[in-house]
C-alpha cells in the first residue's frame, strides 16, 4: 500500500465517524481527508456507506461518534444551511432538484445569498449557461420537465451558484448517456481548475480514475484502502477487490 | 418467569390502590370525596380515549360527544321512566353513545390522522349545537335535572345511594372497566390495534382488515366514554350542553398526554394531576391576590398556568407522568 504524495492543506477531515440509521450501524469508523482544490473519489460497492458519508459531512444525518472538521473547525452537528453558507455544497444521488420550481428559481436558491452583488450573480449565471446552454434555453421551465441529464446539470449548477470551496458529488453519472457522462467529466475538470475541491462518489471507474487525484476504497462502513489515481488502472486488482461483483 | 413476577407485582399494586380508594370516602370530607369520584369518572373517559390515541393511533377530539350522549341518554331514562331505574339509565346512556360511536366509526375508516381529528372535533360541535338548540328535548342551555335512582334490582330490593356507596359504585364500574380494557388491550385484538398505530400500511399488507378493527376500536372507546357520561349524570344529577363542548374533548386529550398515552392507567393519573392542579391553582390565585394586594390576580384563570404546564409537558415529557416515572424507576 504505497502512500500517495502528501495531500495539500486539508479542507475536510473526517475522523472515525460512526453513523446509525435507527439500529443499523452504517458507518463504522470512517476516516478520510480532502485537500483544497483536490478531486478525491470515494468508491465501493452498493450499500457500503458512501452516500451516508457524504450525508454525514453535510449534516443531513448525525454522526454518533467521531468528528468532521472543515478548515480545521469542527462542524459535526451544524445544520446543513450553515454548511452551505460557509462553502460546502451537496449534489445528492437522485439529483433532487426542486421539481415545481423553474430552472431559474432552482438556481436562485443558491444565488440568493447575503453579500452577493447583482453583478456577481449575473457573472455566475452567464458562466454557468456558457457551460450548460441547454439550461439557459429552459430557464423558465419547471425543473420536473427536464430530462435526467438536464436535471443533473441543474443540480450541479445549483451547487455551483453557492460558490463553494468543496462540492460533495454523489453518483453524478448514474443513469446518464455516454455523451452526458463526458459533459460531467468536463465540468469536474472546470471546477478543479477553478480551485473547487470535489469529493466524488462514483461507480464509473474510468471517469473516476481520469477525474480524481486520489481514491478512497470503502467496504463494510469504513475506508479500507487509499491510493493515488495515477497508480491505478481500470483492471487493477484493487479495483476488482472493492468494486467487482 | 419475568412475566409471572410482573403479574404478581401488578395485582399487588392494583389491590393496594383499590383498597385505598375504597377507604377514601370513609375518611375524606365530602368535598374531597366528590373530587375523588370525579377524578375516577374523568379517568374512565380519558381511558376510553386512550384506546384510540394510545393503542390505535387515532387522535379523537370527539369524546365530548360520546360522554354527552351517555349523560343525556341516562337523563332521558331517568326522566321518562318512573320510577327512575339505574340499569335502564345505563342502557339508554350506552345506546346513545353507541349510536354516535357508530357514526364516527364510519368516518374513522375513511380518514387518516389529522383529517380524522378535525372531523371528530367538528362532529362534537355539531352535537353541541343540536343539543343547545333543541330546547324542547334537551332543555337547551339549562340542561336537564333529575333525581338519582336507587341502587339494586327494582321489584326485588333497592336502597338509595349514599355519598359513600355512590363512590363505591363508581369505583366498581371504573375498576371493572379498567380490567376489561386491560384484558382487551393485552389480547391479540389489542396487539393488532397497536400494530395499526405503528404502521397501518404494513398491518393492512399483512392481511388484517384494518377498517373493521378501527370500527371496533371506536365503538369500544365510545361505549366506555358513554359509561363515564352515565356515571357523571348519576353523580351530579344533571346533564348540560357544556359537557358536549369540544373543549371537554380537548381536556380529555390533555389527561391522556399528561398521564401517558398507551398505558390505560396513565389517563386516570393524568386526570387526577390536571384536576388537582386546577384545584390548587384556583385556590392559589385568590390567596396571592390578598397577600400581594393585587386584586386583579384573584380571577386569574387557572387554565393559563395549566396550559403552560401542559405545553411544557408536550415538549419535554411527551411520555407523560407515567412514562417519566417508568424511566426514572428504570435508572
Amino acid at each position, binding site marked *: 500500500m504505497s502512500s500517495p504524495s502528501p495531500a495539500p492543506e486539508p479542507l475536510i477531515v473526517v475522523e472515525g465517524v460512526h453513523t446509525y440509521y435507527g439500529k443499523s450501524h452504517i458507518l463504522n469508523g470512517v476516516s478520510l481527508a480532502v485537500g483544497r482544490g483536490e478531486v478525491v473519489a470515494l468508491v465501493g460497492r452498493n450499500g457500503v456507506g458512501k452516500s451516508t458519508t457524504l450525508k454525514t459531512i453535510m449534516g443531513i444525518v448525525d454522526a454518533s461518534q467521531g468528528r468532521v472538521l472543515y478548515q480545521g473547525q469542527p462542524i459535526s452537528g451544524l445544520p446543513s444551511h450553515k454548511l452551505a453558507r460557509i462553502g460546502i455544497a451537496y449534489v445528492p444521488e437522485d439529483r433532487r432538484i426542486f421539481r415545481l420550481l423553474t430552472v431559474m428559481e432552482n438556481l*436562485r436558491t443558491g444565488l440568493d445569498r447575503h453579500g452577493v452583488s447583482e453583478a456577481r450573480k449575473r457573472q455566475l449565471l452567464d458562466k454557468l449557461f456558457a457551460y450548460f446552454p441547454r439550461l439557459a434555453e429552459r430557464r423558465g421551465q419547471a425543473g420536473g420537465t427536464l430530462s435526467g441529464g438536464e436535471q443533473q446539470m441543474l443540480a450541479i449548477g445549483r451547487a455551483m451558484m453557492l460558490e463553494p470551496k468543496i462540492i460533495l458529488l454523489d453518483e453524478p453519472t448514474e443513469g446518464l448517456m455516454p455523451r452526458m457522462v463526458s459533459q460531467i467529466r468536463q465540468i469536474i475538470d472546470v471546477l478543479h481548475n477553478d480551485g473547487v475541491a470535489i469529493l466524488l462518489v462514483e461507480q464509473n471507474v474510468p471517469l473516476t480514475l481520469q477525474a480524481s487525484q486520489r481514491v478512497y476504497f470503502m467496504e463494510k462502513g469504513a475506508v479500507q484502502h487509499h491510493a493515488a489515481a495515477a497508480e491505478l488502472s481500470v483492471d487493477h486488482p484493487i479495483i476488482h477487490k472493492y468494486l467487482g461483483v | 418467569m419475568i412475566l409471572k413476577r410482573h403479574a404478581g407485582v401488578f395485582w399487588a399494586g392494583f389491590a393496594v390502590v383499590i383498597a385505598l380508594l375504597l377507604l377514601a370516602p370513609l375518611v375524606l370530607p365530602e368535598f374531597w370525596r366528590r373530587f375523588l369520584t370525579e377524578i375516577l369518572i374523568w379517568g374512565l373517559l380519558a381511558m376510553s380515549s386512550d384506546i384510540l390515541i394510545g393503542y390505535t393511533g387515532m387522535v379523537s377530539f370527539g369524546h365530548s360527544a360520546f360522554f354527552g350522549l351517555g349523560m343525556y341518554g341516562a337523563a332521558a331514562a331517568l326522566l321518562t321512566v318512573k320510577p327512575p331505574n339505574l340499569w335502564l339509565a345505563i342502557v339508554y346512556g350506552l345506546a346513545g353513545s353507541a349510536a354516535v360511536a357508530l357514526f364516527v366509526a364510519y368516518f374513522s375508516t375513511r380518514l387518516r390522522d389529522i383529517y380524522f381529528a378535525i372531523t371528530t372535533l367538528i362532529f362534537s360541535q355539531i352535537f353541541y349545537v*343540536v343539543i343547545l338548540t333543541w330546547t324542547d328535548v334537551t332543555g337547551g342551555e339549562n340542561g336537564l335535572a333529575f333525581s338519582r335512582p336507587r341502587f339494586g334490582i327494582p321489584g326485588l330490593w333497592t336502597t338509595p345511594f349514599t355519598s359513600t356507596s355512590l363512590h363505591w359504585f363508581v369505583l366498581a364500574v371504573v375498576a371493572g372497566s379498567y380490567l376489561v380494557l386491560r384484558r382487551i388491550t393485552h389480547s391479540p385484538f389489542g396487539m393488532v390495534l397497536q400494530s395499526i398505530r405503528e404502521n397501518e400500511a404494513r398491518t393492512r399488507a399483512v392481511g388484517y382488515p384494518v377498517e373493521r378493527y378501527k370500527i371496533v376500536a371506536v365503538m369500544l372507546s365510545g361505549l366506555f366514554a358513554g359509561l363515564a357520561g352515565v356515571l357523571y349524570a348519576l353523580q351530579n344529577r344533571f346533564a348540560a350542553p357544556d359537557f358536549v363542548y369540544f373543549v371537554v374533548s380537548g381536556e380529555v386529550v390533555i389527561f391522556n398526554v399528561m398521564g401517558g398515552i398507551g398505558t390505560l392507567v396513565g389517563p386516570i393519573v393524568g386526570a387526577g394531576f390536571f384536576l388537582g392542579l386546577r384545584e390548587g391553582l384556583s385556590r392559589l390565585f385568590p390567596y396571592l391576590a390578598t397577600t400581594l394586594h393585587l386584586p386583579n390576580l384573584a380571577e386569574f384563570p387557572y387554565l393559563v398556568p395549566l*396550559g403552560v404546564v401542559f405545553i411544557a409537558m408536550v415538549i419535554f415529557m411527551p411520555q407523560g407522568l407515567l412514562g417519566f416515572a417508568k424511566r426514572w424507576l428504570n435508572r
Partner: protein
Amino acid sequence: MQIPWDIIIIQTVNGVVTGMILALVASGLTLIFGIMDVVNFAHGELFMLGAYMGVVTLAATGNFWLALLSATAIVALLGALLQVVTLRPLLGRDPLYTILATFGISLVLQNYALWQFGPVARKIQEPFSGQFTLFYLQYPWYRLLIALLSAAMIGGLYLFLKYGRFGVWIRATTQDRVMAQAMGIPVPWVHTGVFAMGAGMAAASGVLFGPLVGVNHTMGLDWVLKAFIVVVVGGMGNLVGSIAASIFISLLEAYASIWVSPSQAIIVSSIVLILTLLFRPTGLFVPTPK
C-alpha cells in the same frame, strides 16, 4: 310563497363579504399546514387577539388603519415567538404533538384574554359609515371595503409566494425540506416566518371583522372551526381551494340563516364537510385525485 328577493341579495353580498374574511383566515391556516405540516389550533385565538389589539390601539390612537397595522404586526411577532418556543422543538415528532401544543396555546391565549379584557364584548368602530346603493337596496360601504382589503391581502400573499426571494424559499422548503436546507435556506426561520405571516393574516381578519360583531374572547372558536371545515373542503394546503371553499360555505350559511338561527347555520357547513369527506376526501375544489 313570496321569495324574499331583497334578503337574498343582501345575504349573497354578506356571504361573499364573510367569505372573503374567512378566506383570509383560512389562507393563513392552510399556508401553515401546507408548508410546515402543522395544524394550528391556536389560529382562532390569533384572530381574537388581533381584534383585541385593534380595540386597544384604536382606543389609544383613534385611528382605525393604525389599529389594523399594529394589530397585524404585534400578533405576527407573537406568532413568531410562539413558533420558536413551542413548535420548533417539536419539529420531526409525531404530528399529534403539534396539534396538542397549539391546542394548549389556544387555551392559554383564550383564558388570558378573558382575564385581561373581561367577558363583556368590546366594539371596534368602523372607520367610516355610510351606505351605497346596491340595486335598489342600501349596503354599507365598510363591508365592501372588507371584501376588497381581504382580496388584496390574499392577492398580495399569492404574488409574494410566486415571486420574491422569500417566496422561492418557502416553495423550495415545502417541496424538499432537506435539499432546501442543503442549499443554504435557513429552514427553521422559513417556518417561523410562515407562521408569523399566518398569524398576521388572522389578526388582520380579526380587526376587519371587529366592527361587524362584538370582540370577545370566544370569537376565535367559531372561526377556527369554520376555517378547518374550509381547509378540509378546499383541500389541505390548497390556497385557491380554500378561497373558493370559504366563499361557497359562507354563501350557504348566509342563505341558511334566512331560515334558521346563525348558530345552527354551522350545521349547514358541517353537512358540506360530511359530504365532501364521503365523496371527495381530498377536497371539493381540487381536481379529481389520481
